[in-house]
């Protein structure tokens, strides 16, 4: 996957590791294509966590995210012949997962629109994925996270279109390059940039009244304020 460079850490070591993983991926792909089905297992075990993270951020639901991961690997296996051995399997599988997650989100939106009854809404609220998700963060952090704010954030993310949510997740949380976001959204890089901008703008409009000064203080305390996320494009 094309990622923005980070300032900290040993870049050379990381690059060497990434290159070794890519090489090993390429061998696993070749062996799978030669009929050795178990070779695909290496790829699944290596890339599952990364795909789950992306899928969960995009769908906001653990069950859907797991389904996206499984389906992405099934599709990758079925279409492995289309995968050029020089490309990066991780990036390719990542795109398949992102595209399937977009389809899934659109499908869900249609379903939700169809059954917008008060009882359905109540049921949805009961099954808030954020409440169901196991939370392993330290207790003080968890206490600091106001449940109402969490709900607002989840709502704000849901309000984004599937393209906007994809762009935001890929850029902000996954640190993907604009070119890669554009490839997933099947758009130009400038359109992808605009989508990222629009998503951040919408989230800001929706959440600023709830975040307020406390959030600003938290951000400052974390030292995150003006630090850019990566290199320019």
């Amino acid at each position, binding site marked *: 996957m094309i990622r923005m460079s980070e300032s900290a850490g040993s870049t050379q070591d990381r690059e060497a590791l990434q290159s070794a993983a890519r090489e090993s991926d390429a061998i696993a792909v070749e062996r799978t294509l030669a009929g050795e089905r178990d070779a695909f297992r290496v790829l699944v075990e290596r890339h599952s966590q990364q795909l789950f993270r992306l899928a969960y951020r995009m769908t906001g639901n653990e069950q859907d995210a797991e389904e996206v991961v499984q389906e992405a690997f099934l599709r990758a296996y079925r279409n492995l012949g289309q995968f050029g051995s020089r490309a990066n399997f991780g990036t390719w599988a990542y795109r398949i997962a992102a595209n399937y997650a977009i389809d899934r989100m659109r499908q869900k939106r249609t379903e939700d629109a169809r059954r917008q009854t008060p009882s359905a809404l109540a049921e949805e609220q009961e099954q808030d994925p954020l409440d169901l998700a196991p939370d392993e963060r330290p207790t003080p952090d968890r206490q600091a996270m106001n449940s109402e704010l969490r709900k607002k954030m989840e709502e704000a993310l849901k309000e984004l279109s599937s393209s906007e949510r994809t762009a935001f997740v890929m850029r902000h949380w996954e640190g993907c390059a604009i070119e890669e976001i554009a490839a997933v959204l099947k758009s130009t890089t400038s359109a992808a940039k605009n989508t990222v901008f629009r998503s951040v703008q919408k989230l*800001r409009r929706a959440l600023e009244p709830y975040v307020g000064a406390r959030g600003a203080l938290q951000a400052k305390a974390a030292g995150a304020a003006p630090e850019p996320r990566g290199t320019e494009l």
Partner: protein
Amino acid sequence: MKHLTEEELIGYREGETTQREAIAEHLTSCTACRTELDRLEAVLSALDNLPMPERGPEYGRAVWQQIAPRLPEKAGRGWRAWFEPRRWVAIGAMAAIVIGAFVAGRWSKPKDSGAPAASVAQVRERVLVVAVGEHLGKSEMVLMELANATPPAPGQKQINISAEQQRAEDLLDANRLYRETVQQSGDAALADVLDDLERVLLDVAHSPQELTPAKLESLQKRIEAHGILFKVRVVGKELQEKQKTPNSAPAPTESKAGERNKA
């Protein structure tokens, strides 16, 4: 002093601007823009605190165990897909229409030059009617099986719909070709039904191969919501009637189209 725009601030925060240095310099001297950036940062930091369910290193193994039984014997398709039998079914179906229409056109060459075009068009339409009728019959079978599928037994967590899914995928290729042909022939109502059918087939083809009872129910509800089974049945019957009445295949009338739309 000219303040930074929201777009510039967001671009700077998300690492997407080409004027990083100029913006950074401006931020050191402009309190208003700095405050704006802090407010933006507060929102993004709050979002970063949303809980993220962790998956440990054993997760990959679990995923493999889930998908391994569902993997076909051999991976990869690419250009080889064109040599798969299911592709040839769709291509064969289309070829049958084209050849049938051509041969029918030749046979029905007018002895009386009075109404040649009408006779050729009628025979071509009959060929299409037979092919689409058959296609709707097959689609109805798949959808019926899914609509009537019972949830898995108590010991079983998921139900496998891979066979229906494969058939839906096969039907999709043929459906696209029929829809386009029907559209060209001007039967908008039939084209609409085929369009609806395509959406449902696509939904089935894109569903996971193994469904939990809740997901099976949701799929069944989606099929039901489209009312597609009823539409397919009504149109299928109509096409069967058309087949039974030789040389009487009329162009779709408004009333017929209206009936289908009602369905």
